[in-house]
C-alpha cells in the first residue's frame, strides 16, 4: 500500500491490529486478552527456558518427520497418478475423500492402531499434509506439455529418467504450491496430534497454560508457532516464485 508516495512495508497493517490488541488489553476488558506488551515480555521470559526448548524440539521433530513423509511419499504418488491412468482411477477417490475429510476424527483410530507415542503424532501430521501434495503434483504432471513427454520418449528416456529429469521439474511449480499448503496443514496436524494423542511439545504447553488461565503465556507460544508456520510458508512461496518463470511456458 502507498500513502502519500511512501510505500508501506508488507504487513504494516499488523501494527494497527497490534495497537488495537494493546488498547483492549490495557482496558482490562477480558482476562482472555492481556496487553500485547505483556505477551511479548512473557515471550522473552519463556523462550529460553528448558520447558519451552523441549517443547520446541519435540514439536519440530514430529513436524519435520511428518512433512518429510508427506513430501517423500506424496510427490512420487502424485507423479505416478498423473502418468498412469490405472493408478489414478484406483487412488483418486481416496485422495479426494481424505483431502476434505475431518481428519481430527480419525486421530482416536490412529491412537488405537499405533499407540500413544511419537509414531501416532507423526502419522497424524503426515495425514494432514500429504493429500494436497498428491493432488497438486498430479495436477502439475497432467498439464505437462505433451510434446515434452514425446521428446523424452523419442530420445529414449528410461521411465526413471523421464520421472527424474522431466516430469518432476515440469511439475515443480505446482508441486511447490502443494508442499506449501501441505506444510501449513501439517502444522495443524502436529498440534492436534500433540493435544489429542499424548500431551507433549507445544500441545502440552497450550494445555498447561490454557487450563491454568496463563493467558499471556498461551498467546506467547501461539505467536511463536504462527511466526514459525508463516516463515516456512513464506520461504516456500519464495521458492515457488523462483520457478514461476517457466510455469507459463511449458
Amino acid at each position, binding site marked *: 500500500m502507498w500513502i502519500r508516495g511512501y510505500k508501506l512495508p508488507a504487513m504494516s497493517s499488523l501494527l494497527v491490529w497490534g495497537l488495537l490488541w494493546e488498547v483492549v488489553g490495557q482496558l482490562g476488558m477480558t482476562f482472555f486478552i492481556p496487553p500485547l506488551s505483556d505477551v511479548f515480555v512473557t515471550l522473552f521470559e519463556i523462550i529460553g527456558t528448558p520447558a519451552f526448548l523441549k517443547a520446541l524440539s519435540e514439536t519440530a521433530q514430529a513436524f519435520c518427520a511428518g512433512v518429510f513423509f508427506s513430501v517423500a511419499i506424496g510427490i512420487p504418488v502424485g507423479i505416478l497418478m498423473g502418468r498412469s491412468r490405472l493408478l489414478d482411477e484406483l487412488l483418486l477417490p481416496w485422495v479426494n475423500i481424505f483431502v476434505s475429510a475431518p481428519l481430527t476424527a480419525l486421530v482416536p483410530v490412529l491412537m488405537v492402531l499405533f499407540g500413544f507415542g511419537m509414531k501416532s503424532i507423526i502419522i497424524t501430521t503426515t495425514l494432514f499434509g500429504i493429500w494436497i501434495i498428491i493432488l497438486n503434483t498430479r495436477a502439475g504432471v497432467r498439464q505437462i*506439455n505433451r*510434446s515434452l513427454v514425446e521428446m523424452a520418449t*523419442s530420445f*529414449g528416456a528410461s521411465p526413471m529418467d523421464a520421472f527424474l*529429469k522431466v516430469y518432476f*521439474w515440469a511439475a*515443480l511449480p505446482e508441486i511447490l504450491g502443494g508442499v506449501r499448503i501441505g506444510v501449513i496443514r501439517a502444522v495443524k496436524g502436529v498440534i492436534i496430534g500433540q493435544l489429542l494423542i499424548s500431551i507433549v511439545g507445544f500441545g502440552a504447553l497450550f494445555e498447561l497454560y490454557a487450563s491454568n488461565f496463563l493467558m499471556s503465556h498461551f498467546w506467547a507460544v501461539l505467536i511463536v508457532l504462527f511466526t514459525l508456520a508463516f516463515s516456512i510458508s513464506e520461504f516456500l512461496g519464495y521458492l515457488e516464485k523462483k520457478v514461476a*518463470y517457466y510455469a507459463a*511456458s511449458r
Partner: protein
Amino acid sequence: MDMSQTNSDFAGVQQPEQDIAVSVRGVSKNYGAVEALKDMSLEFPRGQLTSLLGPSGCGKTTLLKIIGGLLKPDSGEIVVNGKPVVGPGPNRAFVFQDFALLPWANVLRNVAFGLELRGVAKSEREDKAAKYIKDVGLAGFEQAYPHELSGGMRQRVGLARALSVDSKVLLLDEPFSAVDEQTRRKFQEDLLSLVANENKTFIFVTHSIEEAVYVSDQIAILLPRPSRVSEIIRPSSFRLKGAENIRRDPEYLDIVDEIWASLRNYVE
C-alpha cells in the same frame, strides 16, 4: 551458408536408382472410429528430404510419429535401414513443432539432453553440444534459458539437439510453423544446406505448399478421408539454379500451382 557448395552436392545425389532409408509398408492407424491412416505405403530415399504435405486431418503428423516410434500402427510396418521399427530408437531424431525444450535448463543442457538420456558422459556430450550450437548459429547463447530466446532461436536449439545425437534419419514435425516469416525463410535456406552437407535422411511435415516445394527433393501429397498418398512429386531442375533463384523458377511455380489445384477441394 555457401550455396554454390549446396548446388554441387545436390547434383551428386540426382541418381536414377535411389537407395531407400525408410519404408512405410501398409500402415493403418485408427483413433477409435476415425481412420487416421489406411494401408499407407511410402518410401524415403537416403540422403534426401521428403515432405509430407496435405490438408489438416490427412494424417501426416500421425505418420511421422509412427515412423518415430511414438505411436504404434494398428497394422503394417516401418523399416528404417533394413530394421523394423518397434519404438523410438537412436537411428531417428525428432524436431518438434513447439520446440519441446526444457524450460528449466540452459541451451547447452537442452542440446545435450538427447545425449544425456543416452548415457553419454557429461564432458563428452557438452563438447558435442557446443559444436552443434555453433553450427546452428547460437554460439554465445550456451548459458541462456529458452524463455530468453526468440521462437526462431528456440527452434535452432531443438534442431541442434536432434543433430547432436547423430541419427541417420531426422523427423521434423512442422518445425517452422511457430516462427515468423523472415526467420522461416532463413531456416528453409539453412535446411537446404543441411540436407546437402549432413548426409542424413529428412522427413519433413508441413502444411505450407511453397515451403514443401522449396525444400524438398520429393513431395508426398497426402489426402484425407480416407487418408492416402495421392501423388509423389519430384522437382527436377530448379535445385541446380541456386537457392535465391528457386522461388521464380517456372517449374517451382508450376508445381506450387499444381499442388494447390489438387488440394483446394479438401480445404474447408
